[in-house]
């Protein structure tokens, strides 16, 4: 069986897939790649099933060594390697991924997928629960991960393929990110000035930013009346406002319930942008309706289906 060796893990590298369903009632996060779309696209590019486990790389630089010949593809940020384009790596080859100029995370798929054991139906690392992935922890220098057998042979000669993913899927980081949101359950309970400030001003991403979420700093968001709420479900993309009136943007590893008021939710198609936020970035919000969010989602799904069919025609 093939393997990939992590020679340099960088600040935070984990094994992820499309996450865990069916365990929220036990307090277990959905988790998985913070940009599920990028994970699906990267897997498709190397001929894998979309749900195969891959590497989530935070910032960098990182270095990997491949035990045998594989096809790889990376989506998310420009790390100097194969942006959204399949690349063949040789037995024993070492690959260096540099830190991206903008953005935070990339997803690197390897043909055959990473075949760490399934835990509660997924190979994703749950850092808080300390399970899944590689012993439930972030990868360290020297870790070796087993790779599966490639199921589809992509037909391309030479080192890199002639096709690639659309640029907006391969490189999702933006120097001026604008996240589209729908109103949260407690939107109406915020003061008029707070609601307009939320949509008009920029928020700074603080240093407290990880796979659970990012604390933001900017215009204070006061409610009309400060009332205690009964904890309810929160999801990746939920923007809750803590007692100091500053927003917290929740990401894939967020808790299952929360008691802070939810002012808004980032729409599904903009979660890839949210996953690229890093400390000191400025982010702005733009309101859309739930119907618009849904239409945007289905438009992207239709594009993904066309992309999938296109790739199938190239595989032998």
């Amino acid at each position, binding site marked *: 069986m093939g393997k990939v060796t992590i020679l340099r893990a960088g600040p935070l590298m984990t094994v992820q897939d499309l996450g865990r*369903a*069916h*365990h*929220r*009632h*036990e*307090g*277990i*996060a*959905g988790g998985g790649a913070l940009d599920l779309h990028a994970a699906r696209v990267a897997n498709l590019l190397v001929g894998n099933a979309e749900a195969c486990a891959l590497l989530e790389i935070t910032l960098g630089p990182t270095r990997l060594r491949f035990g045998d010949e594989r096809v790889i593809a990376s989506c998310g940020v420009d790390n100097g390697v194969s942006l959204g384009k399949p690349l063949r790596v040789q037995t024993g080859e070492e690959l260096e991924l540099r830190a991206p100029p903008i953005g935070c995370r990339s997803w690197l798929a390897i043909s055959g997928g990473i075949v760490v054991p399934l*835990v*509660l139906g997924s190979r994703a690392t*749950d850092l*808080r*629960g*300390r*399970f*899944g992935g590689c012993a*439930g922890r972030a990868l360290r220098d020297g870790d070796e991960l087993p790779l599966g057998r490639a199921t589809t042979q992509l037909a391309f000669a030479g080192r890199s393929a002639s096709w690639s993913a659309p640029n907006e899927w391969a490189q999702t980081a933006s120097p001026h990110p604008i996240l589209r949101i*729908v109103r949260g*359950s407690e939107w109406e309970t915020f003061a008029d000035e707070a609601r307009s400030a939320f949509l008009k001003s920029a928020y700074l991403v603080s240093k407290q930013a990880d796979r659970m979420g990012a604390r933001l700093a900017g215009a204070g968001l006061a409610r009309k009346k400060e009332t205690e709420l*009964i*904890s*309810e*479900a*929160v*999801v990746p*993309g*939920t923007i809750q406002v803590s007692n100091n009136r500053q927003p917290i943007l929740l990401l894939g590893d967020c*808790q*299952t*319930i*929360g008691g802070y008021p*939810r002012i808004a*939710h*980032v*729409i*599904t198609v903009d979660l890839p942008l949210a996953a690229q936020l890093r400390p000191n970035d400025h982010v702005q919000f733009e309101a859309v309706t*739930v*119907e618009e*969010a*849904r239409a945007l*989602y*289905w438009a992207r*799904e239709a594009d993904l289906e066309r992309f999938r069919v296109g790739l199938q025609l190239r595989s032998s």
Partner: protein
Amino acid sequence: MPLGDTAVVVRVGDSLGKVLATARKLEAARLPGVVEIAPAFASVALFLETPQPFDDFAHTIRAALRRRLPAAKLDRPSRLLEVPVCYEPECGPDLATVVQHCRLSPNEIMRCHCRPEYRVRCVGFSPGFPYLSKLPRALATPRRASPRTEVPAGSVGIGGAQTGIYPLPSPGGWNIIGRTPLRLFDASREPAALLQTGDRVRFFAIDRAEFKRWEK
């Protein structure tokens, strides 16, 4: 009401019976496109595979909730779990805080905490964390001003008017009064969480030596 574009929250009021009945009805209805259903304190959340038109989906949910279920399916008998807890100071670093706040002796706190039959109102926040209701009012103690950076697994805490158990080593703001040797969360087990919403719980006190034996 919608929770972003791919989830919906059904509010039912602050009653465990209603929450459980709603969750069971929605599970039994096997609504198409619903990936999972998770109860909270006064609501049930439904997570969808893909965004659906909200009004249509709300209509489907209402129809599912109007349907009658056989009583046997609705009123599943709740389990009673007896949970051993060591209330020695090394297991309960915040005992002194609770002693001061509640004006009770450590022994009284232990006896008082072991008396009621608690109900698991919700499992959430972190993996396997059970929120238990029916904490005697005499024991209610506000959360710590600054949370501890790491609370050991099995720590039993009081947070305001609730009590709960930290299943995994994690940061925590509740006052820790003891520790159980039981494994509340184990990802290699199905279900991974020992306690599920609706379970009944009773604590009983054990000493250091018994704690060590239980750990094995």
